[in-house]
């Protein structure tokens, strides 16, 4: 999954000489919290609703006037992503820098924006259920060919794999969660066990 698959476009932008007040209205109007700032069509920073609130807060020692220009309070330079970056790369950047969005640049052009919510949508797409399927969870030893062995078994049963998630657990074992397109998963789990696979779900009956 790439950034271009999850980004929002076109992007609502503000000119650098826009006021804090007008940018706040712009955010309210579009229901957004992140606005890239441009000067003569070129990206120069990002302003968030938090930037505006902090800048104008009565708690601030020197609050800005609502008529101040946003270039005074924006974050710059803007951190950006490329449309062809993998989604996880964008997530890592945002997490490391603790920022809530990445404007997406194709060469010199601003072509989209990715926010934390878009990443949550991506997570839902990766883990969600788009076709009727059941959950199969298998622990595999961490060496080559294990996944192929599992996939070959399911292929021989003519069972369709709808999605796969994997992560290494504490014992350096790979835990795979597959959504597979059959209602008869417990039967398949039993056969996998007899083939020597460690099936974590469907569970054996508790007695």
């Amino acid at each position, binding site marked *: 999954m790439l950034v271009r698959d999850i980004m929002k476009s076109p992007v609502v932008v503000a000119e650098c000489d826009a006021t804090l007040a007008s940018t706040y209205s712009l955010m309210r109007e579009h229901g957004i919290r992140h606005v890239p700032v441009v000067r003569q069509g070129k990206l120069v920073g990002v302003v968030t609703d938090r930037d505006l609130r902090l800048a104008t807060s009565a708690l601030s020692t020197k609050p800005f006037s609502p008529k101040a220009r946003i270039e005074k309070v924006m974050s710059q330079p803007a951190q950006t992503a490329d449309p062809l970056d993998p989604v996880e790369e964008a997530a890592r950047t945002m997490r490391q820098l603790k920022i809530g969005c990445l404007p997406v640049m194709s060469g010199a052009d601003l072509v989209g924006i990715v926010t934390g919510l878009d990443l949550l949508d991506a997570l839902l797409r990766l883990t969600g259920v788009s076709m009727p399927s*059941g*959950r199969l969870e298998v622990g595999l030893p961490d060496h080559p060919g294990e996944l192929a062995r599992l996939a070959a078994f399911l292929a021989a049963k003519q069972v369709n794999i709808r999605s796969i998630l994997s992560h290494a657990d504490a014992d350096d074992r790979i835990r795979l969660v597959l959504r597979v397109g059959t*209602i008869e998963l417990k039967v398949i789990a039993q056969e996998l066990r007899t083939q020597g696979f460690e099936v974590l779900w*469907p569970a054996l009956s508790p007695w």
Partner: protein
Amino acid sequence: MVIDVYDPNYLAYDFGPAHPFSPVRLEMLLDLLHELGHPVGPMAPQPVSREDLLTVHSEEYVSAVEEADRGEPVTDPDRFGLGTPDNPVFPGMDQAARYLVGGTLLGAHLLFYDKAQTVIQLGGGMHHAQRDRASGFCVYNDLAVAIRYLLDHGATVAYLDIDVHHGDGVQTIFYDEPSVLTISLHESGQYLFPGTGEVHELGKLHGRGRKLNVPLAPFTEADSYLRAFSAVVPQALAWFRPDFLVVQAGADAHAGDPLADLLLTTQAFETLFQRCLEYADKFCRGRVLFTLGGGYDVHSVPRIWALLYLTIHGHPVASELPASWRQRWQERLGVDLPAAMHDPNPAYPPVPLREEIADHNRSITNRLLDSLMPYWYGSV
């Protein structure tokens, strides 16, 4: 008055000897009822017409089923969910599936014209079938066709699904329909097929707040199940006040079922059936249509559906199964069958994490009711 609906053509809905959805379960049931002294004297349906099927299914899909049935190669059978391990194609599939739909539709017709107050359709319950796709052993969605018929005659319908799997086909077909309340109790889709049926699936547009899901944890036992059932179902029916109730009475939430992990007993099923009848009396003048559904354990399924039949008819429940029935089917199937109508108590050894599972189900139930309140009673 109770009317039974059944046709011997139901037995032709048969995916083959190795497939769990076997007509043997139905034969065992009919034979058991006969031996118990209650031979089924059913009304026999016609197979559903193409026109009636198209009130729910796409033309393209029905044509694909017809082609597959004639042995013609279907372009892209995968797209229609046909020819999969769950839904293999067999000769006569279209016709057999149409009889099942015809039966459920006949039930709806009998209720609508007051020919019966209660109908038990001894088949059907094909709740996974979608508009343009076979799924989970289901080809045509008899429940949706019957519900659509009632809607088209101006009625409102509550659909209650106690099959262990989420009633995804029915829910999806009526997802934006305000005149249909769907309630499905099932093992959570996080684990079990078809994967849907989460609490947040509440319907869309005018149907919002009218599609209810109670996804229960694997290894949920009868007490916890019945608590969730009683917390949600009567309250929903009291709010919705349907003209008719349709119940999909799948038997696969039983502890012995090979395809799922809920732990209901025959006693729990009897209680559920009694409550369905009570709620029908209380909230829709007793007008209720029961269908069968999933259920793949020959040890429990005939007993559960016999209990359904006996409860609906108000017949006493014999404590022992007829010895001749038991002997005949033990020989035929080569398995040992229980001698009593009800499960032994306890029916299975103690379950680890029992309290955690019950707590989880309680919180799921509360979350569902909390999220419904704004739709039912306005903002709180």
